[in-house]
């Protein structure tokens, strides 16, 4: 039992924090979020060049040969910096491609993803994640119909993050229906890797106030080649479930980082703001709120890192991943609410950094499934 970070892990965290403080300070985060603006020019390339995108991928594809723990460290620091972008989709997508037996060798694409030379967007949702685990499979309505030359895609995905910048879309589609003999709904799902610039694909920007660029992507009878299939036909569900596990862990890590920074900002305010001639942070009504924020965050930290550590060891055990996201989503809600309350009216304004975190976390809490979805996923196993 050892809760310490290795020297390499500490260095990775320090490097991330220093880099984001320099290249993506709060003023930049404010500009990007409030104007739904682009990231500072060249920032993402620098993130890629530092090796962070591929840190959890094997050395053979140019990765850092680390586990998901290192990716969680990066995600936590990105959350702390409010950095939007395709980090989670890149890690989750690349790992999925690595694990799937695909008709085509995808090694060079995975290496490009690790190096930032190619970008990928995960296209799973069709109107937000559902609230019950069994509805994830049924909510996938995009059809992929087999033809002589490949498949024809018909339907749409939304939200897809940063779809406009994605060289590749990794999407989940329905390839069989119950009457065609598939035993279960999840046995009807297949995964496809589709070039982002495939003619006919339509992007429609969705309103977003979190800093993430979100799109509805429509596939109106788009023909894709047979070798776009990832894994076996109708066998996409286990791969997708595994990807969703990792997405849950990484989004929990981003929430963790965001909440930690929010607590720091709030403590600073509580120490400096004076009422009745003393700092409000000396008042127990404020202190106990802060203590509860700290507990929420400490629990989120332990559950999230445990889940990252378990990822490679017990891949079939979903408990840790869902536990991390279930707790972190609810904890972030409480932490952000307390932060606003302690800041008083100022906490409600765009001028206060807390509001940036508030909007960012609202989106993160839902991505890769919210607390209800993950509680439901756990509920199936809690009573046998």
């Amino acid at each position, binding site marked *: *039992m*050892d*809760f*310490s*970070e*290795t020297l390499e*892990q500490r260095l990775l965290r320090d490097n991330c924090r220093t880099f984001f403080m320099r290249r993506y300070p709060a003023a930049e985060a404010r500009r990007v979020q409030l104007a739904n603006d682009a990231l500072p020019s060249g920032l993402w390339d620098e993130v890629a060049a530092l090796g962070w995108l591929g840190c959890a991928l094997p050395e053979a594809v140019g990765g850092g040969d680390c586990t998901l*723990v290192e990716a969680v460290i990066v995600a936590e620091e990105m959350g702390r910096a409010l950095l939007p972008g395709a980090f989670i989709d890149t890690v989750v997508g690349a790992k999925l491609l690595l694990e799937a037996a695909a008709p085509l060798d995808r090694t060079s694409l995975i290496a490009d993803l690790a190096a930032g030379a190619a970008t990928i967007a995960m296209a799973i949702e069709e109107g937000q994640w559902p609230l019950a685990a069994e509805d994830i499979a049924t909510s996938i309505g995009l059809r992929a119909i087999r033809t002589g030359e490949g498949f024809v895609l018909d339907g749409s995905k939304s939200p897809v993050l940063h779809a406009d910048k994605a060289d590749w879309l990794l999407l989940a589609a329905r390839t069989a229906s119950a009457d065609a003999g598939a035993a279960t709904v999840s046995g009807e799902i297949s995964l496809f890797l589709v070039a982002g610039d495939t003619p006919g694909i339509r992007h429609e920007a969705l309103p977003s106030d979190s800093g993430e660029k979100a799109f509805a992507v429509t596939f109106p009878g788009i023909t894709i080649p047979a070798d776009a299939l990832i894994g076996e036909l109708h066998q996409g569900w286990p791969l997708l479930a595994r990807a969703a596990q990792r997405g849950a862990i990484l989004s929990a890590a981003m929430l963790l980082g965001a909440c930690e920074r929010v*607590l720091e900002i709030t*403590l600073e305010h*509580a*120490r400096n703001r004076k009422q009745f001639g*003393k*700092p409000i*942070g*000396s*008042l*127990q009504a*404020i*202190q*106990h709120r*802060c*203590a*509860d924020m*700290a*507990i929420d965050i*400490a*629990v989120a930290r*332990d*559950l999230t*890192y*445990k889940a990252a*550590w*378990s990822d490679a060891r017990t891949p079939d055990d979903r*408990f*840790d991943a*869902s*536990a991390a996201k*279930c*707790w972190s989503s609810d904890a972030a809600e409480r932490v952000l609410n307390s932060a606003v309350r302690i800041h008083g009216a100022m906490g409600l304004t765009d001028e206060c950094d807390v509001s940036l975190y508030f909007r960012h976390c609202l989106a993160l809490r839902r991505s890769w499934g919210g607390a209800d979805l993950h*509680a*439901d996923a*756990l*509920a*199936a*196993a*809690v*009573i*046998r």
Partner: protein
Amino acid sequence: MNYELTVEQEQFRQEVGEFLAASCTPHEWDYWDLGPEEQLEHRAMALKLGAKGWLGLSWPTQYGGLSRSRIEAVLLQEQLAYYGNPGVNRAAVSLIGPALLNFGSEAQKAQHLPGIASGRTFWSQGFSEPGAGSDLAAVSTRAVREGSDYIINGQKIWTSFANKAEWIFVLARTGDTASRHKGLSYLLTPLDAPGIRVRPIRHMAGFQPFCEVFFDDVRVPEAQRLGAENAGWAVAMGTLSDERSGVEYSGASRRILHDLQAYCAAIRWRSQREHDGVANRLARLAVEVEAARLMAYRVTWMQAAGEDVSGHAAMSKVFGSELMGRLAAVAMQLVSSHAPLAPAGRWASLEARLRREYMAVLGRITAAGSSEIMRNIIATRGLRLPASPR
């Protein structure tokens, strides 16, 4: 970062689990509910644990311990808590034992530690008073020097199991009234000393763990003072903080969760909606039970690394004890909803135990530093907020 136990630790964990599973069935142990019969079993179990060397697991071998690591100690505490702490006199094993190790003279260690480690001697904690609870420095029980003795006069309360223990450790005022925490001394006295009177106090759940202890000219030799005169506060604070990981709450929480899972697996649900609603609540609680364990393990790991754990230990205590409360509250809704209340009904003993737990857990949230005091500590020591005005 590694959440795995070593092979040795895992073997030890299993050894403890197997021993307790064999020793604690079919009798359902209940830490609090010690009638005369259970009290005998409790004592017998203490001797068994003592014979294994587990009561002083991490203590030096010369005092009856096994010199095992803190990690192993926490694994043992977790399993014991899961089984309701059979044979565990916490005041002895977790409070005065470590205090003696840290502050005791060689003579004091030699006199007291073997009795605790062997499970022969039970202790009670004499800290709180009617006028000194969370504000422990307000202690007014006086100890006046007379030759090489102290004469104690006053009253202690919430002295759990004082009616069943042999010794009591007492925080008494040896300085002047205004000296607060600078005028307290830490004295050890047998409970059968002349002038001591013990009055049990009935808990609303029907048992008598609480006591009041009255001191009327009780004579304590100077040799039974732990630490220097007027330096009792440091000993008391050391007593309260050592080995405090919160693992007893996570172990006990896991037990309630497992009981509820077993119950849910056995009953006939009236509808799918009923099942799903309960399953959802239990799922969230299962997450928290796992989190409580991780928090307690983290505190233990920090202690082993020599770090200041005051903030983390307080967080673990608040989270774990309040989690027990949440679990017991769900249990009250659930078990009484399906269990026939007949005393011979299949679930009657489970319901009775959970009902006692539901009432007893409020004591756990208050004892050993109330949640409110713990939140003060988290804020001021963990988060470094300014001290609140007094």
